[in-house]
């Protein structure tokens, strides 16, 4: 046991309750009653509204910390997918030579996939780290997942810059449909949130989830048309691999908007929206119901 461990225990015992009864007039006195609690999923929403500045601060921290750490800073976020794209293009463009302007085809999906993968991993680690803090102080438990995924969406937007560059270089016209990309981002964001919530809940209780997840993600990557063209994966298991793959439906929206420059059909929008918002609701519900047990678990 180190000195810091001892001091934590000491502080926990010496825990003081500071009551600010004589608060300034413009500040209303907060009242907490454990009997008046609503359903955890609703309670969490109300708490988030109260702690909205915390979400902003945490998101800010995640963005600032990422760019201060690496020497190249913001440029790194753009160079990373570009590097992978170049390697994959060189390797695969001869195999999949029927696909027109393959680098763009690849990069549209790759940007989505890396955002999803990285944001969920960071959300998981951040909640596990945060659960130590949650044993000492009350915070809305969803704060850590929310802030990391919001920060990832900022990175996603930056990742679009090299994508547009590649489109210009490979001669893919940027059409007006590119203006609808923010709607796609909303879908990707809510799917990542939903999945991040599920994953984080499990990871708080079971440390081996952090080891299982990369294996799952590797498999998921090969089952999603990222560098393998859709036409090839469509033949696998009568197309059920794609139909049951939520990421495919979201990536399809981005490919339509950016690579093909067409408006996705109403059906495609519907499926993608159902998958994304469904995942968010499910993840939110599961996380909030289990989050009351986080402190019990310790």
């Amino acid at each position, binding site marked *: 046991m180190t000195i810091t461990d001892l001091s934590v225990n000491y502080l926990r015992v010496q825990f003081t309750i500071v009551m600010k009864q004589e608060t300034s007039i413009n500040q209303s006195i907060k009242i907490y009653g454990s009997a008046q609690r609503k359903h955890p999923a609703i309670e969490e929403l109300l708490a988030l509204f109260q702690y909205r500045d915390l979400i902003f601060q945490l998101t800010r921290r995640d963005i600032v910390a990422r760019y201060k750490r690496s020497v190249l800073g913001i440029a790194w976020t753009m160079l990373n997918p570009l590097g992978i794209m170049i390697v994959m293009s060189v390797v695969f463009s001869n195999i999949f030579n029927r696909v027109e302007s393959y680098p763009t085809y690849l990069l549209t999906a790759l940007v989505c996939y890396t955002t999803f993968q990285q944001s969920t991993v960071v959300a998981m680690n951040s909640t596990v780290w945060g659960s130590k803090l949650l044993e000492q*102080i009350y915070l809305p438990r969803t704060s850590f997942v929310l802030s990391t995924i919001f920060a990832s969406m900022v990175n996603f937007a930056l990742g679009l810059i090299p994508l547009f560059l590649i489109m210009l270089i490979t001669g893919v016209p940027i059409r007006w449909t590119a203006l609808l990309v923010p709607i796609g981002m909303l879908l990707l964001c809510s799917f990542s949130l939903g999945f991040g919530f599920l994953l984080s809940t499990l990871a708080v209780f079971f440390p081996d989830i952090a080891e299982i997840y990369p294996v799952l993600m590797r498999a998921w990557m090969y089952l999603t048309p990222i560098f393998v063209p859709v036409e090839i994966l469509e033949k696998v298991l009568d197309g059920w691999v794609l139909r049951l793959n939520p990421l495919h439906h979201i990536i399809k929206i981005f490919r339509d908007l950016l690579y093909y420059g067409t408006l996705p059909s109403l059906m495609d929008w519907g499926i993608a929206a159902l998958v994304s918002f469904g995942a968010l609701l499910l993840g939110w519900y599961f996380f909030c119901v289990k989050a009351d047990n986080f402190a019990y678990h310790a």
Partner: protein
Amino acid sequence: MHRLQDSEPQSDTAVWLQDVAVCYHIPNDPIKTFKEYIIRIIQGKLKYHDFWALKDINLDVKRGEIFGIIGLNGAGKSTLLKVISKVLIPTKGRVWIKGEISPLLQLGAGFHPELTGLENIYLNASILGHTRVEIDEKLD
């Protein structure tokens, strides 16, 4: 800790607990991993026992009162404080708090080395539940 008290908090009450109980469900064999958890479920060997850390706690701390809690190791002092600070939701009973709770955190628990001092102030104050407007007011 057992005191006679009214069934509702009075106007000068700050912290008020009624019949609070906290029960931990502890698996009979400790489960460390997800793999173990799934295997236990399949085998039907997932059994828990109850551990009551707190039972029938009644408390009425008036405003301005200085209140100390003493007890042996494992008596439930920390659990009680967790219940008061909203970290633990009690298994039974009612907790009622008027005002703000400021638990003393481990020094630098929420600090981030990459942020500036001012940024860290904003981050930590918001962890303690203050809004940006409140921090702005106090900082100047």
